[in-house]
């Protein structure tokens, strides 16, 4: 059996990229984004991308680099604030943005990965999001039809992974990564700790390896924090002591 393990981001993306393709990219804000794969995507120079993700990076960070490099044609996202280049591109008509409610986006991806072509949701009924969409009543409530989403390639970030592609995420860095790992025709995962098959507890695995085609150990994680928010240290507690 061919190994799923690659040396780095560019070798893991080799042969998968083409102009005009769609890419799902995991993360919420800058939390849990595939940093190494985003940099390799920028360096590849692939163009005309449709990028599906909750956000498109933030000023100077994450998917912003691919955007600033002029590689993105369309964005499918729920929130794109804190991103001046995107704002300029959008206002000048240089990029298309399809806004999806966050839960609808997550469910469209989940459905896409689960082989469900469409579903009904109350979210967005009676708003701009519902314009032009099929509606239907169930038990007296109005629902919108939304379609499942798949991408040519999904790029995801996990905390730990093994050579079979099994993944474990950490805290809120999980977010969109597990659903996106199910909805790419090809799925590339980067992990902070890559181990041999059998070293992750079978009951602890979040994403079963069947969904992951290629995996590698990422390096140089920045994990930029958008809003570092702290509370004052009490005088009775010294640094390092657990709260």
């Amino acid at each position, binding site marked *: 059996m061919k190994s799923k393990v690659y040396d780095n981001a560019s070798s893991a993306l080799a042969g998968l990229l083409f102009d005009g393709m769609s890419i799902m990219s995991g993360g*919420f*804000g*800058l*939390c*849990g984004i595939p940093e190494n794969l985003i940099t390799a995507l920028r360096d590849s120079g692939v163009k005309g991308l449709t990028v599906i993700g*909750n956000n498109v990076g933030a000023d100077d960070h994450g998917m912003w680099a691919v955007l600033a490099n002029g590689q993105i044609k369309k964005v499918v*996202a*729920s*929130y*794109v*604030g804190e991103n001046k280049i995107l*704002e300029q591109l*959008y*206002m000048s008509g240089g990029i298309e*943005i399809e*806004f999806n*409610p*966050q*839960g*609808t*986006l*997550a*469910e469209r*991806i*989940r459905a896409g990965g689960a082989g469900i072509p469409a579903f009904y*949701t*109350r*979210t*967005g*009924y*009676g*708003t*701009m*999001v519902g314009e032009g969409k099929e509606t239907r009543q169930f038990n007296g409530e109005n629902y919108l039809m939304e379609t499942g989403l798949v991408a040519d390639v999904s790029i995801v970030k996990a*905390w730990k992974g093994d050579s079979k592609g099994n993944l474990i*995420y*950490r*805290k*809120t*860095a*999980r*977010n969109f*990564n*597990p*659903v996106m790992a199910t909805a790419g025709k090809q799925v590339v995962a980067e992990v902070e700790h890559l181990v041999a098959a059998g070293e992750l507890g079978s009951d602890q695995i*979040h994403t079963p390896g069947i969904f992951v085609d290629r995996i590698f150990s990422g390096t140089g994680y920045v*994990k*930029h*924090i*958008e*809003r*570092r*928010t*702290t*509370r004052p*240290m009490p005088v009775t*507690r010294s*640094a*390092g002591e657990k*709260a």
Partner: protein
Amino acid sequence: MPWTRDDMAARAARELKDGFHVNLGVGIPTQVANLIPPDISVTLQSENGMLGMGPFPYDDEVDPDLINAGKQTITELPHTSYFSSADSFGMIRGGHIDLSILGGMQVAENGDLANWMVPGKMIKGMGGAMDLVAGVRRIIVVMEHTEKTGAPKFLRECSLPLTGKAVVDLLITDLGVFEIDRHGGGASLVELAPGVTIEEITAKTAARFQDKTRAS
């Protein structure tokens, strides 16, 4: 004297009940987390995939893998659980969250809410707001009663694009509190901020409402 932002958050906190699972929006609603009465237990949900949100971290506890939906660093509690965005919105859309407290730009007398975009300005996106108002059992909106220009924000119909249709149950402003029957029963003024008269709030409101402040 009208309520301050802190007063409005404190008034919203009085709507919390023991055992509630609650999602708080950004702005004034976030402050509600600091005002939970000590005799009740409330679990805070963050839609990026966390149930059981703790306080902000001390400086040496900051973890970039642990943020809330406002992208602020946060801490976990012993009973915290983490899950994917799809599970998180399953929780929200499926009616498992008891209460959400959100900010607003405009509210209509039938419970319509607009809080995500202003035509002609850069659209940042609705994030999870449309899912929250569509799925959470009870929706409270906390907002200033009028625009800075003095124009009313509690209206017969919203002029801004909607976040949800007939979704608001309670509106808390700096001038008072309105109950809204989102099944067509209209709006009722149930409380006035100290020193605010019925004449003043009526003059600053375009929505039609019944005055129930003297009902009991």
